[in-house]
């Protein structure tokens, strides 16, 4: 097969894909609106562990698995566990401490409090991207990476 034949084929494929499957306008405008969500004063707590990254961990536990995630900034770690079926969430701040936590979501935020032992929970996490903004007294404010839970 010649390179020219392959080029012709690729060009045809390119035309077909670009006619049918370019990024929808709504996705582009949502992306453009994302800049407004960037944190100014908060320190970023990056996603450092996600059990969904481990192949096979969820497999075999049909519908009954939970997912663990860890976000970490210099001063504070946030551990989350999300129950698969119920979408209920429990969280833990490390080191343990009380804090006001905003669960950021594109359709609006939910607010929860971490108790003296740094524990917090949410009956049901929203679908779509979420981020946790945490106000923890002397340790300042942090915001986690956006994730889909």
């Amino acid at each position: 097969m010649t390179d020219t034949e392959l080029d012709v084929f690729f060009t045809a494929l390119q035309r077909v894909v670009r006619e049918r499957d370019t990024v929808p306008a709504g996705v582009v405008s949502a992306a453009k609106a994302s800049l407004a969500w960037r944190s100014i004063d908060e320190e970023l707590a990056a996603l450092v562990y996600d059990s969904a990254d481990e192949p096979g961990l969820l497999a075999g536990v049909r519908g009954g698995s939970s997912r663990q995630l860890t976000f970490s900034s210099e001063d504070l770690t946030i551990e989350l566990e999300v129950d698969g079926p119920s979408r209920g969430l429990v969280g833990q701040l490390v080191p343990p401490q009380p804090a006001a936590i905003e669960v950021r979501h594109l359709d609006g935020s939910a607010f929860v409090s971490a108790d003296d032992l740094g524990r917090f929970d949410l009956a049901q996490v929203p679908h779509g991207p979420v981020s946790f903004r945490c106000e923890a007294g002397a340790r300042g404010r942090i915001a986690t990476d956006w994730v889909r839970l």
Partner: protein
Amino acid sequence: MRDLEAASWVRRAALGDEEAWEALVDRFADLVWSVARGHGLGSADAADVSQTTWLRLAEHLRTIREPERVGAWLITTSRRESLRTLRRVRHHVLVDSCAEWCGNGPAIDVDADLLAGERDAELWKAFEGLSGPCKALLRMFLADPPPSYADVSVAIDMPMGSIGPTRMRCIERLRGCVVGEPDQVEAEERTPVTLRRRAS
């Protein structure tokens, strides 16, 4: 080659410059979408992966280590997010064999008299039916505009020199699965053309 234009958009967007951010989105939105679609995600999941990726970039603007590699960062992030989605729905396909590529469905016979639009539809259907790393790689290069080899190389951890040959091999394989050359049908008057999925 370093993407200095993209790097300057990142630096300006980090300071809140909306125009620079929009330029970034205009350049890379279709690439991010293509990464998700190339991993076999449907439109709703691909939209969520895109949204998550862009929100995450907005938070990382200040800390991103190599702003000139923002294209690679976007591919890496959207790819990881796509794989997470696939594992959650448990139908991930991480290897491609020809069987997976081509499926075992009945052959699609396309008569030479068909309109170009119908042939395109068959080609699209065949492409949509494919899965695996080759599909993911090719779909990325079908983005408008396509990514640089340098960004793809960093994102999928493949040497620069291997990207071109791998891309060609994938095109060749795909063409082998989807027999027929829709663009050349006109030239071969009245010759029946078969655009079909090979059985294995």
